[in-house]
């Protein structure tokens, strides 16, 4: 599913007042400015998002008159960050440690799944038979409820981080495959013709023309996949027995919710922050790659 719609920031038909940019001399300067702007925007959105949620939260609390046990105040949740966890470290440090562990699982899965997706996407786009055979199967694979086969996975891969990374990879794989296949298929036929007239081989056409042309599309897929990788890594920690990671943090704080409700909210917020971080990182990487930023070829 190239639902990959995370590219909402750039509507395909150039939104309002799409006027050609005037020639700028310092390409490097404008790029660094663009990157700073992108991160600034991301942070702003994150901040706004958190503030909006907090405001809604407090509003809901007042409206429904829910007690502090069920719905602690947002500032109490924030305050918990400074409270000591079990080994003397603060909750912030404790969360940060687990955040990094889940990040690692997600990234390993993301890397493996993306690479696999990229290769399969290329195969599908370049060979009609392979495409016809594998695209329906990858689609079918995507409908498998991964939590359901989770227990079976544990049997083969153990309860360690490999299972988590595998699940992350499994979820990453599909959007990248579809995006790559579509991106390559959408390379303008003039461009492919151009390479042919230059007597370029299939590999040269792929590497020099089709893949770079597909990059904007691939990055749309990668963004979706990044979100999925984080979901995969966390969900994999929930039921499969693990000591570390945000999933384990969610489980333990969930278990003790009636005694101490704030950690569960912290764990949920940390998970969301992780998702946002990974997705925005992918976006940041995109801004560093010229071919990924430019849509299609020139008119």
């Amino acid at each position, binding site marked *: 599913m*190239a639902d990959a719609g995370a590219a909402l920031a750039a*509507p395909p038909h150039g939104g309002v007042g799409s006027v050609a940019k005037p020639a700028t001399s310092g390409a490097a300067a404008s790029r660094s400015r663009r990157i700073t702007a992108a991160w600034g925007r991301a942070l702003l959105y994150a901040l706004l998002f958190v503030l909006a949620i907090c405001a809604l939260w407090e509003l809901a609390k007042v409206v429904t008159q829910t007690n502090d046990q069920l719905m602690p105040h947002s500032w109490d949740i924030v305050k918990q960050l400074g409270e000591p966890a079990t080994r003397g470290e603060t909750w912030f440090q404790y969360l940060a440690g687990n955040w990094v562990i889940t990040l690692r699982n997600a990234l390993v899965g993301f890397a493996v799944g993306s690479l696999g997706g990229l290769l399969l996407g290329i195969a599908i786009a370049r060979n009609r038979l392979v495409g016809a055979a594998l695209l329906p199967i990858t689609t079918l694979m995507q*409908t498998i409820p991964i939590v*359901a086969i989770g227990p079976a996975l544990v049997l083969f891969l153990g309860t360690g981080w490999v299972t988590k990374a595998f699940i992350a990879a499994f979820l990453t794989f599909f959007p990248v495959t579809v995006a790559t296949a579509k991106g390559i298929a959408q390379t303008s036929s003039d461009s492919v013709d151009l390479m042919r007239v230059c007597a370029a081989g299939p590999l040269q056409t792929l590497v020099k023309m089709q893949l770079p042309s597909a990059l904007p599309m691939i990055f749309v897929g990668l963004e979706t996949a990044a*979100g999925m990788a984080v979901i995969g890594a966390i969900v994999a920690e929930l039921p499969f027995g693990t000591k570390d990671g945000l999933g384990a943090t969610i489980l333990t704080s969930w278990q003790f919710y009636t005694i101490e409700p704030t950690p569960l909210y912290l764990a*949920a917020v940390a998970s969301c922050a992780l998702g946002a971080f990974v997705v925005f990182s992918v976006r940041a990487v995109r801004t560093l790659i010229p071919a990924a930023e430019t849509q299609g070829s020139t008119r």
Partner: protein
Amino acid sequence: MSPAAKDRLIAVVSPVVALVMLFGLWELVIKVRNIKELILPAPSDILIQAWRTRGTLMEYVMFTGKEAMVGLVAAVCVSLFLAMLIHGNETLSSLGAGLAGAGRALPTIVLYPVVTVFLGTTSTAVIVIIAITLVPLLFGYVLTGLTMRSDLDDLMHVAGADGWQKFSLVRVPMALPYIVTGLRTALPLAVISAIVAEYFGGSTHTLGAFIRLQAGQLHTLDLWAAIVFACLLGVLAFVVGDLLERAALRRRGDSPVLL
């Protein structure tokens, strides 16, 4: 044979061949390595069991499917309402688009414990989780569609159209491909979200809960039979979405929006 007919044949035969090969390999590994049913059953046994228990499983499929549909409809309503509210304002729209993008990055399933705190492990909780997952996605699509500008807007302006006429005669039809593509994307996601949420709690007359129950009881055959039906439901959602998109777009000769 004409090239078109050959294409169609390839499109049908090759995935079937690939699937058969995949299951054959699985069956072979089970038989050769003598893997116990407790660990991983053979596909043939799974299919037989799936057929045998199809009655109960279909009941669960219906229930899960209903949850997914209700969640989807709720998400569509919320998204449409929000997007309609803000699409006229450029600042709000770009802010909304940004938030929708951020929202899609969130692993909403981790909110499940939080949601159950309020709603209990009920069907409602599952529906709410589905809706929370789908809203950023659908909202993004609807908003993008509604904020699309074209010469048609100018045309309507010159023709002296009022706000409602511009909205109903141009904006909504222009947004339609986006809305439909959003729906197509959201459909399978709704099913997956439903099963995952059910798995972690909720009524037991659902696919997710049944799968968990069978896993707990070591009934691996029933577990996999349920997975087969879960996949069927997913495929159904996928196909329905695809048909919906095709039907909606064929009417106007558009190609799907790739987002």
